[in-house]
C-alpha cells in the first residue's frame, strides 16, 4: 500500500464532498434531524394517559376515588361522562384510553360488605399502553383502599394493621427509570449506523455511474489503497457526526454520562469503521447510486431499530431471532454505549462487545476490499 495513492484518493474525496451540497447535507443535517426526531419522538414512558370518568354514585367516597386518579401523574382526566354511551363514544373516538366507572352502590358496598369494586374499561388497541395503564390503575385503587382501611382502623381506635414484609427496592444506573436515559444511547447508535453507511454507500457507485471508474481502474491503484483512501475522509466526517450526536444526547437531552470520553471515542471509532465498511461494501457491489443508497438504508435501519436491543429487549426474542441479532453491529455498540453512559463502564468491562465489534470490522473490511473488482463487466 502506497501512502501517496491513499492520500491522493482521500484528498479528492474531501474536495468532492465539500463541493457537493447534497452530500454536505447528508453529512451535517441528517444526524441533526434524526437526533431531534428520535430524541423527541421516541418516548417509552407512559404518563398522563387520557382517561374519562363516569361516577354513577356521586358520593364523597366515589369522588375521592376520582381524586386519587386525578392526583396520579400517570393519568389525566379529560372527560366526565353521564352514561355508558358517553364512555363508549369517548373510547371509540380515541379521546380516552381508559374509562373509570364507579358503580352506584360503591359507598354502600364499601361500608357493608368490605368489597366494593371500581370498573376500568380499556382501549387495548395498543396493548402495551393498556397493560401499563391497567397496572397503574390497580395501584391507584390499591392505595385508595389502603387509605380507607387505615382510616377505619384508626376510627375504631385500633392499631394499624401490620404489614408482614415490605420490598425495599433501589434502582441502579437509571435511578429515575426514565426511558429517555436508555433511549439516547440507542438513538446515537441508530443515527451513526444510518449516516455512516449512507456516507460511503455512494462513493464507488458514483464513480461507476459517472464513468470516472473506468479510468481509475486502469491506474495502478490497488483495492486496499482505494478502500482506505475512500473511507478515511468519511471516518473523520463520521467522528464529527458522532461527537455532534453525543454532545446533543448529553447536553440537550440530558442523558446521564458516567463513562470516560476515551472509551467512548475508541468504541465509536470501531463502530464507525464497521458501518463505513458496510456502506463501501454495498457501494462496490451495486453500481447504481440510488440502489446502493437505498440498500444501505434498509440494511442499517431495520436491523438497527428492530434487532439491536434498542426497541425490543433481545433476551425476550425467540432464539432464532436472538441468533440474528449477533449479525447486527449496532447490537454491540448499543450495549457498549448503554454501559458507558449509564454504568460508566471502562474499556476493561467491555472486552466482549469490543472484541466482537473488532471481529466484525475485520470481516466487513475484507469483504469490502474484495467486493471491488478492478475489471469491467
Amino acid at each position: 500500500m502506497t501512502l501517496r495513492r491513499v492520500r491522493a484518493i482521500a484528498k479528492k474525496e474531501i474536495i468532492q464532498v465539500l463541493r457537493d451540497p447534497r452530500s454536505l447535507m447528508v453529512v451535517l443535517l441528517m444526524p441533526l434531524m434524526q437526533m431531534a426526531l428520535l430524541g423527541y419522538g421516541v418516548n417509552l414512558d407512559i404518563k398522563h394517559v387520557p382517561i374519562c370518568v363516569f361516577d354513577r354514585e356521586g358520593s364523597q367516597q366515589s369522588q375521592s376515588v376520582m381524586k386519587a386518579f386525578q392526583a396520579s401523574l400517570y393519568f389525566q382526566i379529560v372527560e366526565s361522562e353521564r352514561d355508558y354511551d358517553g364512555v363508549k363514544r369517548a373510547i371509540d373516538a380515541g379521546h380516552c384510553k381508559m374509562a373509570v366507572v364507579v358503580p352506584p352502590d360503591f359507598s354502600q358496598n364499601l361500608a357493608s360488605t368490605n368489597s366494593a369494586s371500581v370498573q376500568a374499561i380499556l382501549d387495548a388497541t395498543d396493548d402495551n399502553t393498556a397493560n401499563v395503564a391497567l397496572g397503574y390503575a390497580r395501584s391507584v385503587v390499591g392505595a385508595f383502599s389502603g387509605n380507607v382501611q387505615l382510616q377505619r382502623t384508626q376510627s375504631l381506635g385500633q392499631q394499624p394493621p401490620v404489614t408482614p414484609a415490605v420490598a425495599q427496592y433501589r434502582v441502579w444506573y437509571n435511578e429515575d427509570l426514565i426511558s429517555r436515559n436508555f433511549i439516547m444511547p440507542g438513538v446515537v447508535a441508530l443515527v451513526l449506523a444510518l449516516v455512516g453507511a449512507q456516507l460511503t454507500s455512494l462513493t464507488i457507485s458514483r464513480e461507476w455511474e459517472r464513468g470516472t471508474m473506468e479510468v481509475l481502474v486502469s491506474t495502478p491503484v490497488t483495492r486496499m489503497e482505494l478502500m482506505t483512501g475512500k473511507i478515511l475522509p468519511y471516518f473523520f466526517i463520521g467522528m464529527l457526526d458522532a461527537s455532534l450526536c453525543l454532545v446533543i444526547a448529553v447536553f440537550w437531552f440530558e442523558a446521564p454520562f458516567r463513562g470516560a470520553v476515551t472509551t467512548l471515542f475508541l468504541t465509536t471509532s470501531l463502530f464507525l469503521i464497521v458501518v463505513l465498511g458496510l456502506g463501501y461494501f454495498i457501494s462496490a457491489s451495486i453500481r447504481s447510486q440510488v440502489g446502493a443508497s437505498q440498500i444501505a438504508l434498509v440494511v442499517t435501519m431495520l436491523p438497527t431499530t428492530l434487532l439491536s436491543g434498542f426497541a425490543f429487549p433481545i433476551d425476550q426474542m425467540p432464539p432464532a431471532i436472538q441468533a440474528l441479532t449477533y449479525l447486527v453491529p449496532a447490537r454491540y455498540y448499543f450495549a457498549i454505549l448503554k454501559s458507558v453512559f449509564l454504568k460508566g463502564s471502562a474499556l476493561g468491562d467491555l472486552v466482549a462487545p469490543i472484541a466482537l465489534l473488532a471481529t466484525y470490522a475485520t470481516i466487513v473490511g475484507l469483504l469490502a476490499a474484495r467486493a471491488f473488482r478492478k475489471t469491467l463487466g
Partner: protein
Amino acid sequence: MNDASAGEIRIVADRLVKRFGDFVAVNEVSFEARRGEIIGFLGPNGAGKSTTIRILCGLLRPTSGKAEVAGLDVARYPERVRENIGYMSQKFSLYNDLSVRENLRFFGGVYGVKGERLSKRLDFAVDMAGLKGREDALVADLSGGWKQRLALGAAVMHEPAILFLDEPTSGVDPESRRRFWHLIYALAGEGVCVVITTHYMDEAEYCNRIALINGGRLIALGSPGELKRSAIRGEILLVEGDDPGAILEALEGVPAARDVAPFGSSLHIVVDDAARDVAAIEARLKERGLSWSKIEPIKPTLEDVFVQLVGGDGARGAAQ
C-alpha cells in the same frame, strides 16, 4: 516515425478471444505494436475495438489468448502493466467537480508521480491541453476539445510507454481533432506507442498502421498505403451525376464494374482497368438515358478498402 518497425515491441496480442455468453466480441485477434508507433483500430460500432483495448489494459479478462504489454503478461501482472500505460475511455472520465489542477494532481498521485516531477508533469499537461491560466477552472465548465486534451494530459501524467485511446475524438469539433492529433504525433515522436480506436477514415490515415476490425475479427493490418495496395485489386472510377441512385442501379449489371458503392453524392466503381472500362460504363448510362457530369479514375481511399473488405454496410457504419 516511419522507422517504427525498428522500435522495440511494446504490445503483443496473441489470438485474443473474448466471449460474452454466446456473443464473440473479440475473435482470435493477434498483432504487435512497437515503440513510437501509432496503431489505429478502425471498424464499425460493436466490432470489438474497445473490448480489445480493455483486454490490453487489463480491464477485461480474455476468454482465451494472451496479451503482453510493456513486456509483461497482462493477466499475471496487471498492476505493473498499469504503471506503464495511460488510458482514455470512450466516455469522458475526469472529475467534473474538480478543477483542472486538482484532476491532474489526483491522477499524478494515483500514478505515483511525486515532488518536483509532479509539478513538472502538471505544467506539461496544462500546457498540452492549452489550459494555462485556467488551472483553477472546474472541469465541468470546459468545452469538449479542452476536456479531451485534459483527459489526454491526465493519462500521460506518469509518462507511460503505451497509450490506449478509445475513440478520443468522438463528439469533438474538427479543429480540436486536428490539435489532438498534433499531440498524439508529438507523444509518438517521443517514443510512446499509441493505440487509438476511431470511426473517422481521415483519422485512420494519420496512423502508422491500421488494424481493420469487423465482427470481432482483425481482417487487415498494415499501413494505409499497404492496405490500399493490397485490398483493392483494380482501379477506382469516380462517377458523378444528377441521379446517383439510378446510376448505381444501371451500373450494377455491367460486367466491367466489379463493385459499385455510393460515396456521398457520388459513386465509386471498382474496375480492372480504368482506361479500358470507361467506355462500357458510358455506354450503359447512355443506353438508360442517364446523364453524368464526371467519370474519372481516382486514387483509392481507405473507405474503398473498407468497402472491399467489410462490405457496404460495415463501411458506412464505420464512416458514419
